[in-house]
Each structure stands twice: as C-alpha cells, then as structure tokens.
C-alpha cells in the first residue's frame, strides 16, 4: 500500500493533474458558495466533461470539485446567513453572528482551517480504516437509523440556548413539514391539502434558503440598511490571519474531534455532511468551557462545523469504494462514473486498480490543501466585497440568487413561493424566539426517522411485539444511551450553573448586609 501511496503523490505532482485539482477545487467552491446549487448538482453538471478524459483525470477533477463545493458553502453561510449547502447549516449559526460583529474575516479563516484539517482527516480515514469501518456500517439496520435520527434530534437541546421548549417545538415543526407529500415507505399521499405540487414534499433547499436568508433580507429592506457593526471595515492585515490560525491551533481537540465525527458520520449511508456538521457543532458546544458563547459568534462553532463536513468527503468514500454503497449523494455520482469507466467497487478495486484509486484519494488531500490559498484569497475577497457593498444592492442581490437556488432544483416557481412562505413564517417565528436551526434539523431527519421506524416495524412484523426490536439490538442500545446523555447533559449543566449562581449570591449577601449595617 505504501508504494501505491507514494505513486499517488507523485502522480498528483504532475502539472496537468495539479491544474485539474486547482480548477476542480475553485469551481467547486464557486458552486458551493451559491445558495441552492449543491455539490451533487455541480458534480452532475461536471460528469459529461469527464467523458473525454482519462479515468484518473476525470475522477481527480470530480473529487477536487466535491471537496471544494463542501467548503464553498461556508462563504455565504458566514457572510449573508445563507448556507450554500445543507452541510453548512451549523456554520451559519456562529459564522453570521461573527459577520454581524465585524469579524467575518476571522470566521472565513476559521472555516478554511477547519475544512483543511477535516478534509485531511477524512482522507486519512479513507486510506487506513476503509475495510473495517465499511464492514461495521453494514451492521446498521432500520432500527439503528431510527435511533441515529433521534440522536440527531437531541442536538436541539444544545442548539437552543434560550428556550428548550421552543427548540423542541421548532424540531417538531420540521418533522411535521417532512411528513408532507408521499410517505417514504408505503407511498401514502399525505397532507398535500389538495395540491399536486406538494406530493413531492417540501424540498429542503428552498426551505433552507427561506428559513435562513429571507428573514435577513426582510430585516435589511425594513431597516433600509444593516446594523452598524456589520459595516465595520476590518483592516487588511495578514497578522490577524495568523493570529486566528494560532488561536484555533491552540485548541486542536476541537479540530480533531469534529473531523473524526465527520469521517464516522460520512460512512453511514444517507447521513452525510448535513447531519455531521450539526453533530460536530453539538459536541463542540458540549465540550466547551464557554457553551454560552455558541450561537453568538464563537469561532470554534464555525471550525467544528467545517471540519466535520469536509471530513465526510473522505468518510463517505469508504463504503462507496469498498462496498459500492454511496455514503452521500455526491458519492453516488462519483460511483456512477467509476462504474461507467468499467471499475467495480469492492476490496479488489484497491488491488486491481490500486494506482487509480490511490491517485484519486491523494487528489482529495491535495484539494484540501489547495483550499487554503484559493479559499483565503477568494473567500476574503468575497468577504470584502459583501462588506463594502451598499445594503440597497446586497438585499435584492441576495433575493436574485435565492430565486435561482429555490427554482433550480425542480424548475418550479412553486418552490420559489414555498421559499418565500417559509421565509416569512421563519421571520415571524424568529421574532417569537424560535431558532430556525431545529426546524431545519427536523426537516432533514424526518424522513430518516420515519423510514427507520416503519422499516424496523416491517422487518420485525413476525414478532408479537415488533416495537421491542428497537430496544434490544446492541448498537441501538448504545445509540439510545448516547441520545439520553445528549439530552441530559445540557440540562445538568444548566442546573449546576444555576446552583453555582445561587451559591454565589448567598455568599455575597452577608457582606452586603454588613456594609449596610
């Protein structure tokens, strides 16, 4: 394997392949930065171009594009609160508050560093852990997927710092919206209110753009400008970049933990970056000494989210290359290209086409490294442009892009209308203290939870008590324990903080009395 790895590195040092990695990474970043244009859509557009290429070159271009697209989603999440891809939802939670505080450049640097480390850890996992982890992921049945969705929903307890009840209500609203349309198992047409357009359900991307972007546009237009802090021009000072890098490097555990989470979640088919970034954010907040800063502009939140989503790129290729089971939709497209080129995934792929496979894997690592200079130049340039742009052009500019994002998925103006309706409702809900993140989380996890639940019941239909199958399988039990811990930990932390505050007040009281006396 070592020889193949060295050969992969040497192959990638060829000027033509280096150029392909650079072009793929930059193009992926550009697509990822546009709300609504996902990595999957970009890859699908790129596939025809690879037909004229040698299989290695085509795969290298696609891999670099994918890595860049996942990173590119962070730009708009940070700058205009519009996650370019669902993988950047958690990035917006702290990235946009940082922009509002005039710290957008710091957030871009954090996202770049997180993406670099996440991308490299994901590739390392792909190289060294592919076969054993792929076998393990096959032990996950419907019951386990149901519990994974439940675990994902417990993140709401961390995402909502103000009101736990409103957080759960938001999550339930997301789950309810997810039930609209044709049921994932059984095919029931539900809650369409007589509209055939709703049979396909509420699409995620228009909902995402609506919930995160439209409320900000409404505020910009209503106030005829942005908050004073947002237009604070940051000095073009390279020492600030190094300062941010040093600051993030002083907490390597956050980078490593989030990258490992991303790699592991990426392995599970169907989960991917959209779940990984939220799980990593949750864990970063839980492990932090200052969880109260999350959601208000904490750079570690941005780093955690971006490390995890880029780590899913490598992680997702583990089942794709070893089992032929794509971990994420973009993996499915790349798997299709592999099959088109006559390559069959499996353990033998690493032996029969080792040179090609390792060149592709190393190209992913090269792309992760390439993201740093390209991202820092393009990302900081974009940041300066957005900050300098007058609000009267920024607001309609965001709407023009949002319309493309919502429309492009199904070429439907109804989807644009759905985006607007959800956006206005999201604005009203935000005014009432509801955070949009739990709603999106419910929307993403709804179909995973329902599919797991119904398929689990169907597979245990022979038993007199099919429900018990959800509580007797070993991996399910572990996931239940993790979910309970995930809910209990923030509650315990809040309880102990309140007790400590009460104790401090009691300690202060006698001194005050004596002064009065």
């Amino acid at each position, binding site marked *: 394997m070592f020889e193949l790895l060295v050969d992969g590195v040497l192959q990638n040092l060829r000027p033509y392949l280096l150029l392909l990695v650079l072009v793929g990474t930059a193009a992926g970043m550009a697509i990822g930065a546009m709300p609504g*244009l996902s990595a999957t859509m970009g890859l699908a557009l790129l596939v025809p171009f690879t037909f004229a290429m040698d299989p290695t070159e085509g795969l290298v271009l696609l891999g670099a594009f994918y890595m860049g697209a996942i990173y590119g989603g962070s730009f708009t999440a940070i700058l205009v609160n519009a996650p370019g891809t669902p993988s950047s939802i958690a990035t917006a939670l702290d990235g946009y508050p940082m922009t509002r505080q005039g710290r957008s450049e710091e957030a871009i640097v954090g996202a770049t560093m997180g993406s670099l480390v996440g991308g490299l850890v994901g590739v390392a996992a792909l190289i060294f852990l592919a076969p054993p982890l792929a076998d393990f992921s096959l032990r996950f049945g419907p019951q386990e997927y149901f519990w994974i969705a439940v675990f994902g929903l417990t993140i709401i307890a961390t995402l909502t710092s103000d009101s736990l009840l409103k957080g759960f209500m938001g999550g339930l*609203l997301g789950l309810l919206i997810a*039930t609209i349309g044709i049921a994932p198992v059984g095919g029931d047409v*539900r809650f369409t209110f007589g509209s055939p357009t709703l049979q396909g359900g509420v699409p995620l991307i228009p909902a995402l753009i609506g919930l995160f972007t439209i409320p900000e546009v409404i505020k910009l237009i209503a106030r005829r400008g942005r908050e004073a802090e947002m237009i604070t021009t940051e000095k073009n000072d390279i020492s600030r970049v190094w300062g941010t890098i040093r600051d993030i490097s002083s907490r390597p555990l956050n980078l490593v933990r989030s990258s490992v989470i991303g790699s592991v979640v990426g392995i599970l088919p169907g989960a991917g970056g959209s779940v990984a970034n939220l799980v990593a954010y949750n864990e970063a907040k839980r492990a932090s000494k200052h969880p109260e800063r999350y959601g208000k502009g904490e750079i570690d939140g941005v780093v955690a989210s971006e490390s995890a989503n880029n780590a899913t790129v490598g992680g997702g290729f583990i089942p794709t290359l070893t089992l032929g089971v794509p971990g994420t939709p973009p993996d499915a497209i790349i798997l299709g290209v592999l099959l088109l080129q006559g390559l069959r995934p499996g353990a033998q792929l690493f032996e029969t086409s080792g040179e090609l496979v390792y060149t592709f894997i190393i190209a992913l690592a090269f792309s992760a490294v390439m993201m740093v200079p390209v991202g820092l130049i393009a990302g900081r340039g974009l940041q300066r442009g957005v900050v300098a742009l007058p609000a009267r052009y920024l607001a*309609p500019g965001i709407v023009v*892009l949002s319309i493309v994002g919502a429309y492009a998925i199904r070429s439907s103006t109804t989807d644009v209308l759905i985006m607007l309706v959800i956006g206005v409702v999201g604005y009203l809900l935000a005014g009432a203290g509801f955070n949009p993140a739990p709603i999106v989380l419910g929307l993403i996890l709804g179909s995973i939870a329902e599919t797991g639940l119904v398929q689990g019941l169907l597979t245990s239909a022979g038993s007199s008590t099919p429900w018990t199958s959800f509580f007797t399988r070993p991996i399910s039990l572990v996931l239940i324990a993790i979910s309970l811990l995930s809910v209990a930990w923030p509650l315990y932390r809040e309880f102990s903080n309140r007790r400590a505050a009460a104790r401090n007040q009691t300690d202060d009281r006698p001194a005050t009395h004596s002064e009065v006396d």
Partner: protein
Amino acid sequence: MVNVISGLAFVLLAAVFWLQRDYTSQYGGTFPDPVIILVAVTGLALTVLGLFRRQPVDPGEQVPVSGLVRAVVLLVAWIATLPILGYVVGGIVFFTLTALLMRDRRPDLKGIALDVGVAVGVVAALYVLFTQVLVVRLPELGL
C-alpha cells in the same frame, strides 16, 4: 402575549394536520400521528407558560412596522409576478424598486440611473452565468 399566540398557532396547525389525515396503508400514520400530537401538546404547554410568564422582547431585533410591510409586499410582488415577468424582467424591475426604496433620501436622476444600471448588470450577469455556463433553467417571460 407572543408565547400565547405562538402556542395557539401550533395547536391550530396540529388541528389542521389532524383533520387532513387520510391514510391508505397500515403504517401511513405511524410516524406523523405522534408528531401531530406532540406539536399540539407542546403548543398547549407554551400557551399555558405564556399566560403565566412574560417574555422579554429584544429591542435590537425590532424593525419598524412600515418597513416590514414594505419588505413583505416587495418580496410577495416579486415572487408572484415571477411566472409572468420571468427572471430577467422581474429581476430588473424589483431589484431597481428595492434599491430605490432602500435609499434614505429621494434619489435624483443620476441615482435612479445608477440603480437601474446595477440591476441590469447583476441580473443579466447572473442570467448568463446560470443559463449559458451552468445550464440551469430559470423562469422565462410568460407574457
């Protein structure tokens, strides 16, 4: 009061979904039914909490009502006319309108020309990028 209204809105939403239930398969309601019930229960809980606890309003997040109406009317008109005006015409018209309405002072002719120019430039550039380079379809003029 905000919590009471929000809680009641959730209860109403749950009621609307409950009345729409019309499952044809055995497991059609296995997942949605508990979700609807939980939406109603948490909505009731928020209503009750709202009756006994006042929610502080963050003054920094408040926006003028006239501005809010202006924003929503602009966006609704933009999206509603999209199937008729298409991406390009609708985009130029509403981009310009938004830019003009967001000005602090009444614009002079030069200011109007600048806003129209920016609108045409941005919308045309995006249209060409998406339809010609990225082969993404966009709403066409329906007149």
